[in-house]
């Protein structure tokens, strides 16, 4: 009986496993091989030492770290806040939820296009609005200043991805029984205490999932960089993934690109390992 279960199971799994090996395992091994390929075809860590002594690598890694931390924190904070807001809305909740989520539906490149148009230094809506409101008296080149360009990158990414956190947080909020907040109110908690001492701790598992997913995705940012700044000005918004891409397809440094890609992969693995650790300690508590 058990043997037959084995055979049947593998029959069902076969297509998925073919995919897993052919399109994932094999290419990953191939990338690792490329990163370790020496001059004469032998094994060599040359590309790795090249990477760790490349100043551009450190610039790019720092940019990625800054981007990831700031955008993920922003997304978590605004995402949870939006969910709490939405949860408190008494009418038209479905329609408002749809409108809250809409940025997530916009394809990344289209979002980049929309924001690029808004941030245009000559005809852009943001400059026009700020000037009309009297906040600014000149037109700013948002994407041509290193700091502002990074800020723009973060804003665009947060704009598109906060709804994801909002959705998850909302789903989590639905699982919290009303009685808990009522009990809190009876005990004299005001709304701030109710949120920080009751809601957020109860949302921990969901927030952890959102945090991990968003961190892993932010670390890989490439599309937004491509459409907004192409890594400029002067590498100010160049991120690890974008750098990896240009090394392969602009500078034709395939081996170096593979090395960078492996580095990104390892970083994400570490993040994932931290996640699993945290998640299982969560499970232990609950």
């Amino acid at each position: 009986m058990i043997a037959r279960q084995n055979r049947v199971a593998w029959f069902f799994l076969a297509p998925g496993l073919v995919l897993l090996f052919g399109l994932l395992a094999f290419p990953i091994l191939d990338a690792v091989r490329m990163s370790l390929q020496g001059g004469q075809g032998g094994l060599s860590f040359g590309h790795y030492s090249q990477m760790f002594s490349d100043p551009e690598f450190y610039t790019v890694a720092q940019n990625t770290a800054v981007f990831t931390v700031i955008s993920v924190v922003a997304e978590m904070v605004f995402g949870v806040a939006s969910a709490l807001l939405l949860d408190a809305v008494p009418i038209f909740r479905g329609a408002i939820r749809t409108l809250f989520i809409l940025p997530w539906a916009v394809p990344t490149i289209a979002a980049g296009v929309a924001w690029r148009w808004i941030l245009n230094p000559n005809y852009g809506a943001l400059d026009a609005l700020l000037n009309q409101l009297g906040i600014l008296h000149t037109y700013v080149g948002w994407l041509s200043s290193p700091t502002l360009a990074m800020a723009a990158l973060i804003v665009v990414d947060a704009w598109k991805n906060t709804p994801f956190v909002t959705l998850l947080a909302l789903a989590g909020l639905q699982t919290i029984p009303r009685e808990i907040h009522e009990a809190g109110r009876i005990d004299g908690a005001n709304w701030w205490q109710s949120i920080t001492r009751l809601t957020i701790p109860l949302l921990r598992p969901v927030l952890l999932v959102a945090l991990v997913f968003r961190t892993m995705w932010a670390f890989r940012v490439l599309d937004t960089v491509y459409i907004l700044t192409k890594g400029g000005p002067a590498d100010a918004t160049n991120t690890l993934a974008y750098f990896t891409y240009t090394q392969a397809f602009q500078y034709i440094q395939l081996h170096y690109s593979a090395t960078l890609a492996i580095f990104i992969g390892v970083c994400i693995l570490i993040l994932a390992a931290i996640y699993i650790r945290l998640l299982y300690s969560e499970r232990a508590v609950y």
Partner: protein
Amino acid sequence: MQGTRRKRIRPRRALARTLLAIAVLVVLFFNLAPIYWMLASSLQPVTDLLTTHPHWIPVHWDLASYRGVFSAQGQASVFLLALRNSTLVALGATLITVVIAALAGYPLARMRFRGRETVLIGVLAMQMVPQVVLLIPLFQMMRRASLLNTHLALQISYTTFTVPLAIWLMAAYFQSIPAELEEAAVIDGCSTFGAFRRVVLPLSLPGLASVAIFSVLSSWDEFLFALTFTSTSKSTTIPVALAEFVGQHHINYQLMVTGGVLATIVPAILVMVFQDRIVSGLTAGSIK
């Protein structure tokens, strides 16, 4: 006593309600303004766009840009083809994904077999692989198989990110179906696969729908593989066509925002119509 209590609470309630409404409006503004502006810009004549005093509500309405796209004139011609390509690629990738995920999710949900834990971890690991790691090897694979500039290349490559989540979702969904129904079918003489096909699948349509929606959305959004594996207008997708467009020296801003709107229509409609499916899918995949 009750009268005074109500009076004391009302102003506070009204204040809270007002603050709530303002907060909601602020969020709505920030979320919707870029989309609105992209749409409004695409519906104005070019001359109205290139100004420092934009009309926040379009004064002159003009469908010239859209007409340009749909009559495939000049620069706009590529968008129509790209729309077709994106659709075909998304549908193809989704079909493959649904089949593979339904098949693979079933034993993970129902059966005990040697290696089950490994497969589960494997599926989880698949979700973590960054696209850039796969990029060069897959590119070389596609080139060797003469699959560059084909829809198939993208449909296959997209499964690398659609299938892992899909397997997860299907396994979760199958687990929510009571096993007695399949057991009854097996007792009546069905094979495992027969029970799967006749009993489980018809009951899993909502789960399959979730998988399909996520798959279409992520395929439509995908950029890197499409950028790398396709370069002809016959095969390239909307995100690439749009990005290619913005890279030109003389950007036609109106066409750019029109392309952005066209790119957004399909996923926006999907998200609006299938909102609940999406939320339940995300919940199933995360709260476990």
